[in-house]
Structure formats: C-alpha cells, structure tokens
C-alpha cells in the first residue's frame, strides 16, 4: 500500500535520464569487457604459439647452425694448418676459397671441402651435390681453367633416388 498522496514532479521522468545513463554505462562496460576477454585470449594464443616455436623451431635452428659452424671451423682449421705449414706454396686460404666459390655453378651445392697440404703437390677434395651431369662437367672445367689448378680428377659420382648426383672431386694445385 502506498504511504500517501504524492503530488511532486513525476518520478519516472525525473529519473529517466539517470536510468538511461546507468543502462548505457552497463552496456559499455559489458562491451569493453567482451573486447578485453577476446584480447586476453588472443594474447594467450600468441604467447603459446611463441612458446611452442621457442621449444621446437629454435633448438632445430641452433642445432643446424652448430653443425654448420663446426664444419666451417674445421675447414678454417685445415686452411690455417695449410697456411702455417707453408706447404701451400704461397697460396693463401682465402684464394683457395675464392677459387672454389668461383668454380661452383649455380646448381651445384658444396657439401664439404678438404685441403690436403701434405700431398705433393697439395690438393683439395671437393664433395658436392649437382642436379645434372652438365653441372659436374662445368665444375671440373671451371676448376681446370684456373692457373692455380694443375689437374682435376673425379673420384666418385653417385646418383641418388631424387636424381641428384653426389660427387667427390680431387683438385691438384700448382706448386
């Protein structure tokens, strides 16, 4: 039961704007809360993706890098040995590397490079993978064209299942 007669200004209209503002505030808060939750979820997904990549991809990359680095170090060690022994008869290791780099055709990948300073004359052993026989021929021809190279000898050639050719090429250097 009402407490009595009320003749004041209409309560509904007086409180209308207030109610509207409260309603607007609640809706805006819910809307922003929804956006916040979605962003938190996206961030969590990105974080887990990064963690997964750190856990799987980076070690593999590091492992690959480590092996390549070790190989490079081995080559450099041999080159240093060659340089220090004086057996290379004045050929600098950088010159040898430059020789190999210039001689490699585009479709031939260098697998390993060995220097044998003790042989007479000193020689290089190049292991590489080529797509075609023509590339192997081109590699031999380019090597032989250098005035630092006395002779080239194809020690081995093996055809893989995917059609590529693995070769071992001995390069005799001039004295």
């Amino acid at each position, binding site marked *: *039961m*009402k*407490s*009595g*007669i*009320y*003749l*004041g*200004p*209409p*309560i509904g209209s007086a409180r209308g704007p207030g109610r509207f503002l409260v309603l607007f505030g609640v809706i805006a808060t819910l809307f922003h809360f929804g956006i916040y939750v979605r962003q938190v979820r996206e961030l969590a997904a990105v974080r887990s993706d990064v963690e997964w990549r750190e856990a799987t991809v980076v070690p593999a990359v590091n492992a690959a890098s480590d092996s390549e680095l070790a190989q490079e170090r081995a080559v450099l060690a041999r080159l240093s040995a060659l340089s220090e022994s004086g057996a290379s008869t004045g050929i600098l290791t950088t010159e040898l590397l430059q020789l190999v780099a210039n001689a490699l055709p585009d479709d031939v990948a260098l697998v390993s490079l060995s220097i044998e300073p003790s042989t007479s004359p000193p020689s290089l052993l190049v292991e590489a993978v080529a797509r075609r026989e023509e590339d192997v021929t081109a590699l031999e021809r380019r090597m032989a064209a250098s005035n630092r190279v006395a002779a080239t000898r194809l020690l081995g050639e093996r055809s893989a299942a995917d059609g590529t050719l693995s070769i071992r090429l001995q390069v005799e250097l001039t004295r």
Partner: protein
Amino acid sequence: MHGSGLWRWRKPSAGLAFSGQSLVAFKKGGKNGSGPRFERKELAEGLLEVSATTPNVHSVRDLAQIAETALDAVGARGERLVVALPDLAITTAVFPGRGRAPERELRQELASMLPYALGEARYDFWRGRHDEVLAAAVREMVAIQYEQIVEAVECRLAWVDAVSLSPIPSWSRRPSKKGELDVCLQLYAGHYCLTVFREGELVDARTKLRKAGDVELVCREVLRVPALHVSADSDEQDSIDSLSLFGCDTAAVAAALEDSARVRAIRIVTDDEDRHLEFSIETLLARGSP
C-alpha cells in the same frame, strides 16, 4: 552525504509547509541529541494567494528568500525537503468502495470534478485497506511555483502532499470497532478540513472555507456528519464516536460541542495552526522516499 548520490536512500529530515498566511520550516532532531527545530515566517498580504486554478505565488523570489531564512534558522539548507502544499490549492475527492477500480475509471471521475483539464493536473490516488480511494489533484502551474521555491533555496524535493491530506493514511490504520464513526477536524484561520471514517473506512474528506474565528459554522457541519454517514436502516446510534481536533480554535469548537448528544468523545490533538503544520511535516517525514 549532501552532494553524493546516496541521498536517495536516506530519509529526508526537514520540510516546508505553506498556508495562506504563513510558512513553516521544520527539521527533525538529530542523532547527536539536537532537538527538533521549528521556524514560522509570517507572509506579507498578497504574497501568497492560495487557489486551485491560478498561480499562487505573487513573487517566487520574495517567497524563496523567506523560505531560505526559515530553513537557515532550522539548519536545513541544501537538504531534501518534504513539502506540504496549502489545502486550497488541491482538489480532493473520496471514492468509497472503489479500491479495486482501474485507474482509468478513477481518472475519469476525478476529471469531472476538476475546474481545469486533467491534462493540466498532477494527480494521485491512495487506496485504503477498506477499498476506499482518496484522490487529489493540483494544477501543474500551481505546483511548479512551489517547486521553484525549493529549487531556489538549493534543496531537493521528497514527498509533496497537501497539509490536511498528509495524516489521512496514518489515521486510516487506527483500529476501529463495528459501527464506529470517527471524525478528524483540521482547523485553519480561513478554512477547515473534515475527514470522516466509518468503521475505519475513509468515507469523506471535505475542505470548506470559514471566516477567522467562526466556530458555529464548523460545529454545524460536524453535527451533520452522523446524518450523512450513518445509514437509515442501521440500528446504530446517530452520533459521532470520536472527534479529534487539530489546528486553531480547537478549544472553542470543543466547548461548543461538549454538551452535544451527537458527539460522544472529543480530543484536542493540537491547539495551534503552526503546530498542526509542523505535525503535517512530521507525518510526511515518516513516509520516507516517494
């Protein structure tokens, strides 16, 4: 608390009441032991001319200054105020046995009694526990003037009711016996309000003009009540069981009626118009928020 949004949950503790001749500010006693404070301000002739149809206040600014002084005196500046409007600004009707009627029907009945269009009115219905309905309306342009006074003194409105209507709901809650006829008479300098309860049910509330000091007219009206509200086929006695008097001239009315066989018991509740305005404000303060 003032200035915060929490004021809506706090009951108002002060109010203003208007009569044609005076303005009364009242503040309840505080919890710190301070007693209730009351301030009456006499109004200059013509400043407030109470009417149900035309603007009442000649100068809102002047009346607001008087209200401000009264509110400062009781320490109620800036508070939420209940306002008791003058009776003669209100149109009142009682619909006995219509407590379950839809408001649409009650509106139509009230509209037929108003001297202006219902669209220009603020109105409300109070439904009693005996299926009676008390209806009251005030013209919007009249009510707004009193609200402007409250705004001008930097206060906010709580309950707004008429001086003589405010105690009716609390009177209707009093216990009553079968066949009992109770009358409450509120007397003011220029008018009086007669409220009749039969077996606790509000059956009549009428406001009538009188000349200041005219007691005879009032007594005649009181003595008519049993004939009006005791049914002819009833075996009940043709008399008022209890007559409660409020306001001014109550002693004179009581003296005039004490030997009447139609009035069994007379009780003077307040004997001063200002005290009755204060009583009206206190009644509104007890209600809480509208």
